[in-house]
């Protein structure tokens, strides 16, 4: 699966990934037979409504699963290796060195009894026992400046002495500590006010320009995606329903869900009177509808939609869509 598509090299390739949780009502499928590629040197925006499985997918890429969950099937290939079949020690060395993640609740990522700098030291030493403290300090300061934090004011502080926004930025800095090949950012601005969001997003765009780092940027704010992503994957009910370049997603959306999602967003396309909330609730992940997950809410559904689940079909070099009717609806 590392073959080139559109002349780009595949960095991360997910195939047939299914993640399930045991819940009182039964088995909840948060990710359902999902396929997704991430290319080198790209920022992939991952969007979808709350609860569609974005965070679960992101965590599973680093094989982090809540105790009541399991990875039922699938492969996650990165650099020729399947993350899901690594040994414990291999996995430990892989994490953060190859792929780092900024969690959705990133501001809670720090141990309350340790200074920020001690986290940097811990993380570096876990992957390089011979690392020197002054080198770690130098690198940490560099990274703090990169996320526009004052190194002196942050590194020697305890987590509770920083604001939520400062912590989120400090985690982003820590994510780049070992220069990973892929950075996953799961709604990195969730706890910030709009102004700080804008500022941090701009910082990230700058960092992206400077470092050329590949990223998966998770959000439900399409405006943020437009600013930072090269390509967008739209997730619905535990699967990817459409993946395409940013331009295509915004101006030539193919999946009815993508269209509905765009209509629900102000300021990107259309005016406020066109703004419509998505009709109907998300599918119940414990009892998903048969056929296409979106068909109960879809204005274009036909008989086959409620019977057969559509495959993710290749539209062109970059674009993929999972809809029985994408050809006729275009």
């Amino acid at each position: 699966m590392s073959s080139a598509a559109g002349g780009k090299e595949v960095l991360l390739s997910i195939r047939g990934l299914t993640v399930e949780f045991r819940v009182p009502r039964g088995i909840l499928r948060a990710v359902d037979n999902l396929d997704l590629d991430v290319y080198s040197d790209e920022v992939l925006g991952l969007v979808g409504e709350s609860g569609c499985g974005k965070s679960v997918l992101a965590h599973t890429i680093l094989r982090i699963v809540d105790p009541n969950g399991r990875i039922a099937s699938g492969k996650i290939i990165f650099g020729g290796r399947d993350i899901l079949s690594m040994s414990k020690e291999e996995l430990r060395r892989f994490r953060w060195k190859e792929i780092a993640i900024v969690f959705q609740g990133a501001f809670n990522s720090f141990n309350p009894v340790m200074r920020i700098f001690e986290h940097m030291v811990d993380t570096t030493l876990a992957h390089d026992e011979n690392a020197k403290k002054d080198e770690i300090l130098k690198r940490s300061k560099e990274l703090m400046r990169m996320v526009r934090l004052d190194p002196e004011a942050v590194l020697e502080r305890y987590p509770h002495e920083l604001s939520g926004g400062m912590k989120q930025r400090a985690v982003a800095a820590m994510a780049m500590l070992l220069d990973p090949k892929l950075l996953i950012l799961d709604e990195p601005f969730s706890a910030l006010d709009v102004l700080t969001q804008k500022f941090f997003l701009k910082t990230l765009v700058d960092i992206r320009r400077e470092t050329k780092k590949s990223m998966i940027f998770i959000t439900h704010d399409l405006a943020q995606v437009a600013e930072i992503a090269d390509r967008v994957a739209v997730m619905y009910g535990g699967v990817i329903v459409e993946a395409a370049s940013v331009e295509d997603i915004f101006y030539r959306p193919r999946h009815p869900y993508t269209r509905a999602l765009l209509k629900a967003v102000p300021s990107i396309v259309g005016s406020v009177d066109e703004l419509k909330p998505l009709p109907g609730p998300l599918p119940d992940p414990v009892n998903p509808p048969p056929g296409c997950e979106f068909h109960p809410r879809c204005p274009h559904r036909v008989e086959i939609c409620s019977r057969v689940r559509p495959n993710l079909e290749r539209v062109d070099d970059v674009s993929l869509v999972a809809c029985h009717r994408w050809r006729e609806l275009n």
Partner: protein
Amino acid sequence: MRWIFRKAALSLFTLFCAITINFFLYRMMPGNPVDMMIQQFLALGYSYEEALTRVSMALSFVPTAPLHEQYVSFLKGVLTGNLGYSIWLATPVATILGYGIPWTVFSVSISLVISFLLGIVLGMHMAYRRGSIIDKVLSFYSSITTAMPQNILGFFMIWVFAIQLKWLPASGPYSGVDPRVFNLDFVISVLRHAVLPILTYVLTTVGGWILTMKSSTISVLGEYYVTAAEARGLKDRRIVTAYVGRNAMLPLFTRFAIALGFMFGGVLLIENLFLYPGIGRFLNQAVYARDYPLISGLFLITAVAVVAANFMADLLYSRLDPRIRFE
């Protein structure tokens, strides 16, 4: 630094209040202990004047003087170490305290530390291996022993280790050695005599530490920063100690301080069963003998211990948890 002084001042004030309340409560109750002491002497055939002289000698104040004068001379006594005379032992209360305190401090601090450390290790282990055999066995053990009176287990220990197996002495602080000669034989004898009381204390209290540590660890394991540390590829041992253990132990220090503060009152059953000459043993006897000056002195030392332990806990806690550090 300044808050340490403020804390220290507050502790002293608390202690002062406890002593004061204790003094007035007893002096103002009808049928109060001082009157009872006079009655005791009258019953022995002394005249009222003689009884009064005897009681005044035992106490550090004159019971017929106005209350505020009594209080002032009582306070003076506390400050100068004159706590009165024990009626039952005819010895200065301060001397008795000086004799009993080392035995209790020695046996209880060892017990407490062992119990605390064992509880932390086992509790954490159980939190990590929930549902395992060890978890089930220790949970069961903890719930029955925390409800069991210490002297029942103590009897059992004496029966097994002292009577049946004859491995260890059943009672007393030492035997067959001269306590005035501090040598290896003395130390060995003291240690051998301390084994059963310590074991009894540990076995009956470790369950509480285990259960607290287990639930504390479980809640820390659910914290984001633990998952975050795993995501960063930290080694298990580092996560267990610096991330999980360190944070899970924080609430236990408060408990530790409380247990330390109540060490003099908390070993009454054990010290009496093993005839161990600590504060608990004297307290028991003093109550039976209605030895008011001694009871009052024992109360004083307990109050000092509680207040001092709380003060130390505050200092220690602020070292361990940066969130409550005031500088």
